[in-house]
């Protein structure tokens, strides 16, 4: 099964379970959780089911294309369901079987993992799921988002699709994965990894990034006050990514780092609160 088939199969599986097939959000972000389809939609009383691929950027994880498993940009397959179905674990296991990872033939473990996003003011309880010792999924029941306790509770399932593909295709490096039957993952992304690692670790203009951070922070606050909540959230995402590059450049001390995280969290909390208010008004 090639990479794109795995994605297609997951889309088919989850759309049959009633999920909307969404597309990635068009801003840089560290994880699918940042996508408004998760962060904002997990707030409030309305039921919500969606699945989407999310390209995720983690500048600090870049390894110049040398390490076989580490990437500064990779793909997540994200499922979000509100309220969490009672048999969600069973459904999830069936999705594994659907991509040829039969839980009966493999050793499946749910290992305690308390998920927390300090920047989003969010946390939840759940597991990392292991298949024969390999972590393939993050499985979380959200409890808070933007500092707000959730009701009803959403479940988030995030598949690391490169890992799953490496396992299914028996490849030792992500760059040898077959994206389709003629093209490898490396053909598409190896050069990205080299150039972006170089940029993130050595080239990025820290002063410019810090200025942009300050400006987008201001913009987010201004937009919230002018009732433009969705654009205000985009500004939060921008701040978060700018901080991630600044961090990868090693340009912040421990206390500055905490300070940046607190600033982003503050923005995220305001947006979450205002968003919740706005959907109640509707």
């Amino acid at each position, binding site marked *: 099964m090639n990479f794109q088939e795995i994605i297609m199969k997951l889309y088919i599986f989850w759309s049959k379970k009633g999920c909307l097939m969404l597309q990635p959000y068009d801003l840089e972000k560290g994880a699918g959780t940042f996508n408004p389809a998760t962060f904002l939609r997990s707030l409030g009383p309305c039921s919500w089911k969606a699945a989407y691929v999310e390209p995720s950027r983690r500048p600090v994880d870049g390894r110049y294309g040398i390490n076989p498993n580490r990437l500064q940009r990779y793909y997540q397959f994200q499922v979000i369901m509100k309220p969490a179905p*009672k048999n969600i674990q069973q459904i999830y296991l069936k999705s594994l079987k659907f991509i040829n990872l039969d*839980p009966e*033939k493999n050793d499946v*473990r749910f290992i305690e993992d308390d998920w927390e996003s300090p920047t989003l003011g969010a946390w939840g*309880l759940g597991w990392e799921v292991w298949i024969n010792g390999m972590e393939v999924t993050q499985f979380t*029941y959200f*409890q808070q988002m933007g500092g707000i306790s959730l009701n009803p509770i959403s479940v988030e399932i995030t598949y690391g699709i490169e890992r799953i593909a490496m396992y299914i295709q028996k490849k030792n490096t992500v760059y040898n994965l077959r994206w389709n039957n003629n093209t490898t993952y490396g053909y598409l992304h190896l050069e990205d990894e080299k150039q972006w690692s170089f940029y993130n670790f050595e080239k990025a203009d820290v002063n410019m990034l810090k200025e942009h951070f300050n400006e987008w922070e201001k913009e987010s606050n201004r937009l919230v006050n002018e009732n433009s909540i969705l654009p205000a959230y985009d500004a939060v995402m921008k701040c978060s990514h700018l901080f991630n590059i600044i961090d990868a450049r090693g340009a912040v001390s421990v206390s500055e780092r905490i300070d940046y995280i607190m600033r982003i969290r503050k923005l995220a909390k305001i947006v979450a609160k205002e968003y919740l208010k706005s959907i109640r008004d509707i």
Partner: protein
Amino acid sequence: MTKKNTKNILLEIGTEELPSSYIDPALRQIEKFTSKTLDGFGLRYNSLKTYATPVRLVLIISDIIIKSKDKTEEFLGPSYAKKNNKNYNKKAIECFAFKHGVVPEKLKIKTITNKGEYFFYAKRTKGEKTEKLLIKIFPDIIRNISFPKTMVWEESGFRFARPIRNIVALYGNKIIKFKIAGINSSNSTFGLHTCNRNKIKINSPENYLSTMKDNFIIVDQHKRRKLIIQSIQSVSKNTGNALFDEDLVNDINYLVEYPSAILCNFDSKYLNLPLEILNICIKKAQKCFVLQNDKNNTTLNYFICIRNGTPQYQEVVKEGYEKVITSRLDDATFFYNNDLQKGLYQNIEKLKGIIFHDKLGTIYEKLERIKQIAVFFNKEFHMNIDNIILEKAIMLSKADLVSEVVFEYPELQGTIGKIYARKLNEDENIAISIEQHYWPLNGSGQLPSNVMAFLISFADKIDTLVSSFSIGLKPSGSTDPYGLRRIGMGFIRMIKEKFPDKDLQYIVEKTFSFLPKNIKNNFQNTNEELLNFLQQRIENIFEVEGYSLDEIKAVTNILRKHGHTSMSILQLKLNALQNARKKSNFQDIVTMFKRITNIINQAKKQNVYISQTINEELLIEKSEKALYVFSKNIKIKIDVYISKKMYENVFDKIIEIKPFIDNFFEKVTIMEKNELIKSNRISIIKYIDDIFTEFINFSCLYS
């Protein structure tokens, strides 16, 4: 089989996977709460047992009686004797009767010895059927389990460690029906995690464990644990010895319901990696067991994974684990080789960019301070370490902090540095120092065995303590983000072990002098707070050694006020004090000193002038003359004893002075009308008190 008139009980709370560390404490809580509750109802039973798997918390009670006992409770009311006072009496009786839901005529009268007659009400509660009580007890058991972290997952808002998905509640073969967290109890449970989880019907509590076993679920955690160990031994017996790790076995035990061990292997080229790295990749990250050759304890290119579920498809699982471990080892090899290629020296430069603390500067700057401190004490304490090697060891001691291996596996700091230093042919003492300068790692951890490592650890710790206290960074209450208490404890243990005769104040003062200007704040303040802090650590250490706290305080209180104090002095005083205390007249001495302290405090309150010199002309009474002469005499001797650390003799002398003081107190009025005489007498007492203030503080001792 159950006896006549008793039944067996089963409660199985079926959940999604609980964190393995939560499970044993939850079982203890279930046992405690259940036995307490059943006792409260007078429900006797034969045995109460709890079991668990990652997804089940189970309670089995055998032979519980089918009905709780009848109960009579007596409530005492108003006095019967006051019945003549009609108004008062009537109202009080009515109130009492009303409170218990009866008419006043139903109340009885009871005579209480020595008190008279009273109204009373005997409330009889009929025994209830166990079956009926369980409807309330079962949900209470579930509600009363607490976990370190809990979550909400369904609309009722019930909190538990992970979602509850199923509840089996049986009383004999009858279902006890209740609903909690949106789940209705039943007699049906679920099998192993697969796509179509089978339902398993439980006919009776006594068949539960065997029915589950038939479905590949070992519910009894003790049996499952044994099975894990046996299974590991049986697959590895022809290959080698598994490195058993209690914590790992316990962890795995609550990650699987039906364990079977699988022997896996990896390419022998990875055996070039140090065992520490192999352990991290195989044991810590993947929860598998490392194998060693049982003859020479060399690590083998095998490991054992524990599969959860039926023993089929072992090949698939084996292949999977081998691939994951191989990729981890591959990763580690990559980092390890990169580190070795770069060596340690270029890392030292990088430490200029690593912040130790915002105010205290970089790690590099800290190393520079450690160097000054260590070189100073090397000479001062006659340690005879070659300063060139010492300085080199210090600069290399934290070089591994910026290595790729430590970046990936922070727990290897120090250890991997040692390995690199050896590989790079550094002096063996340097290699050992890199690892051991972090020691002791905890309150009871081993102290550095190597002399140079000891000195570096000593310098590193005192630098951290003095610099942190100088900028006002100190632990308070439960917060100690920089682990200063642990460091302080380690520091004192080290001093006690190797520099028992060295003065603590002096060490602190000298270290302070090496601080750079920008963090050198108020010596007096830093010194006082740090010594108070160290005193608490000293007290902890002596307490752990079994000395009683009041004795410890009596000797350590001196630390705050007076000059030279070393661990050996404290230790000798403590021992002398312990011996003296065994003597029969010691308690009188304590009482005597308490009296002395009281008199001085009282005099201070009354602003009586206390002089350093005694006016001999004002000595009138025989007893005060005698006391003064004796004290002068004894002071000379005691000063000599104290300076020679002959503390046992000091205590003997104290005993000698006692009759003189007793006589003085008896014959002399201290609070004389004549101010000069009064002042002189108080001054004598103060003079005696002063002889001992540098020795021990008697007022700390309990009577």
